[in-house]
């Protein structure tokens, strides 16, 4: 047990920070989002620099991948990185043509990145199914929640099933990816809010000096830190069912709380498009609903811990 980043990990993260400062960020996310576009440029940069496939490298593994996912989310990068770097490698050896969208066969709801994805990885319960998507196959769904969404009805009956047990692996790694992405997104939302309450003055003082607000922000910090470390632990452990489910359960619940508190404490300005909070906060809602939502992750946690079958 050693929770300090190694020199190699620190170097990776530092290089990634610099890259993300240049190629990601809230303003870029807003500009792309307004046009319903996917950030292919960011994905390309992450790919060429090796960050997007760090889990497949010799020296690194799923923990580094989770750290990358967390960092990209914190910089508002909206790319299907969790799928590429955590879920697909967790299900099969060979990479899939990206971007990769993740969906569940029993959920007819809109799917993140469906309109831009080349491949769909579909959770069919026992197995995961790999489905190649045609351009324009998904129907775009208008949404205010920070990610491009699409519906994929007809796709679901094609493609190639992965071996038995791949469905469970997919769900576990998907949970880890969600937890890591939520952790980074929450951190950004919270940091923005902290900055805001430090400088916003009312009643003759910074509103961040009121204890009531400090306590709520501190509680959020505790939740964000717990989420982030449970995600990292689960990634390092290889996404066993229990660790993955509890990471997602914790992060999902934390995300709902952080959404509510950051908006409440940011007042009216926090609702505007000119302020960056919405870039992160609205995504927290989407992340919290994915893969069956918090209730699903909680049930999976309990099953993994106390029942023989997940």
């Amino acid at each position, binding site marked *: *047990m050693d*929770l300090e980043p190694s020199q190699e990990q620190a170097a990776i993260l530092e290089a990634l920070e610099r890259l993300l400062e240049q190629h990601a960020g809230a303003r870029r996310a807003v500009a792309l989002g307004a046009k319903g576009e996917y950030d292919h440029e960011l994905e390309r940069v992450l790919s060429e620099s090796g960050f997007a496939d760090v889990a497949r490298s010799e020296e690194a593994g799923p923990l580094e991948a989770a750290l990358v996912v967390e960092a990209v989310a914190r910089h508002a990068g909206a790319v299907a990185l969790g799928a590429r770097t955590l879920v697909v490698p967790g299900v099969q050896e060979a990479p899939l043509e990206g971007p990769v969208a993740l969906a569940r066969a029993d959920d007819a709801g809109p799917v993140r990145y469906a309109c831009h994805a080349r491949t769909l990885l579909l959770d069919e319960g026992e197995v995961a199914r790999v489905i190649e998507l045609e351009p324009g196959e998904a129907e775009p769904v208008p949404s205010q929640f920070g990610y491009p969404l699409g519906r994929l009805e007809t796709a679901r009956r094609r493609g190639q099933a992965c071996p038995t047990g791949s469905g469970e692996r997919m769900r576990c790694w998907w949970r880890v990816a969600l937890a890591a992405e939520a952790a980074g997104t929450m951190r950004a939302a919270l940091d923005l809010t902290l900055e805001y309450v430090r400088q916003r003055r009312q009643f003759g003082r910074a509103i961040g000096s009121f204890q009531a607000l400090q*306590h709520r922000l501190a509680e959020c910090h*505790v939740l964000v830190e*717990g989420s982030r470390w449970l995600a990292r*632990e689960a990634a390092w452990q290889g996404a066993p069912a229990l660790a993955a*489910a509890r990471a997602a*359960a914790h992060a999902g619940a934390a995300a709902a709380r952080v959404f509510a508190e950051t908006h409440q404490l940011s007042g009216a300005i926090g609702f505007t498009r000119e302020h960056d909070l919405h870039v992160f906060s609205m995504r927290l809602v989407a992340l919290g609903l994915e893969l069956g939502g918090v209730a699903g992750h909680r049930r999976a946690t*309990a099953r993994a*811990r106390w029942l023989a079958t997940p």
Partner: protein
Amino acid sequence: MEFSWSDEEVRFRRELVAFLEQVLPPDWEQISKDGPGGDGQARFSREFAARLAERGWLTQHWPRRYGGSDASPWLHAILGEEMWARGEPRGPQYMNVNWIGPAIMEYGTEAQKQQHLSRISRGDVLWCQGFSEPEAGSDLAALRTLALRDGDDYVVNGSKIWTSYANHAEFCFLLVRTDPASRRQRGITVLLMPMDLPGVEVREIPAVVGERYFHEVFLDGVRVPVACRLGPEGEGWAVVSYALQYERVGAARYARASLTLDRLAEHASQRGWLEDPRVLERLGEASALVDAARILTYRVIDQRAHGLPPSADTNVARVAGTRAEQAVAELALELFGTESLVHGSFGDAQFRSAMTAGVAVGASEVQLNLIASRLLGLPRE
């Protein structure tokens, strides 16, 4: 960054668990139902702590010269988990080991180290913590117990309140004000006071949370030798701050919460309730909170293992622990229903002990204040 346990750590945990299964009597739950301060447990703990000490496990993370084996803080953390999961058979002595000993190691004279550390590491002494007063709880710096210098003694007058374990303790880690003109943190001094000195009176404060839980300690003209002073006169606040960092994550309370969840799940399973998705969700929710407390505590232990100075991450871990305990206690009530109202029942024990989680060892509000100022950069009011 990695999350594995070394072979040594795995081996140690296995040996320890085997030892505990062998040594804890079959009626241990009955003995320990009133918590570490209860008579049964305090009595048992003397023998038990001594046996742990014989195996070299009581203070293994201490330096060799003080009765330890320079072991990694992780081994001590593993020990804490297994102890707390079983209702803390070390009794009040967990406190000596976790922060009183370390404070004496850091600030004590050679004579004090000789006198106290060997006894703590042998497991044959009980201490209590003389911090809070009727007018100084969360605001500890408002303490008023006076200790005026008279020759080779301090003459102590005042009282302490909520003092756990005062009924059995031989020594008190006592905070006093040695400069009557001083205010707040300045002028506070730590005394390692023998509890059998004339003028010390201990009275139990009956409380709904358990037997022998709280005490008042009245100090009426108690002459405490100057040799009992820990650290420089008037600079006790630094000693206190040091000790508090250790105290905050001293008890692996998440381990007890985790065991409680196992019991709740067993109870639910016996009744077929694990088919009910709502029960699964409630269990999963509490489980996630408990593991968050665990991993955040590991963060603190890790910082210690790296020799880093204590940080406000101890406060983060403490808040997470409290939220986990509270969630588990609530769930215990839900699942045990009105059986929880029966004194001595499992639901009863969980609920009443969790009542203090947000207040003991520093109120949650103080923890949140410290997180806000030290980690979030928020200005004081």
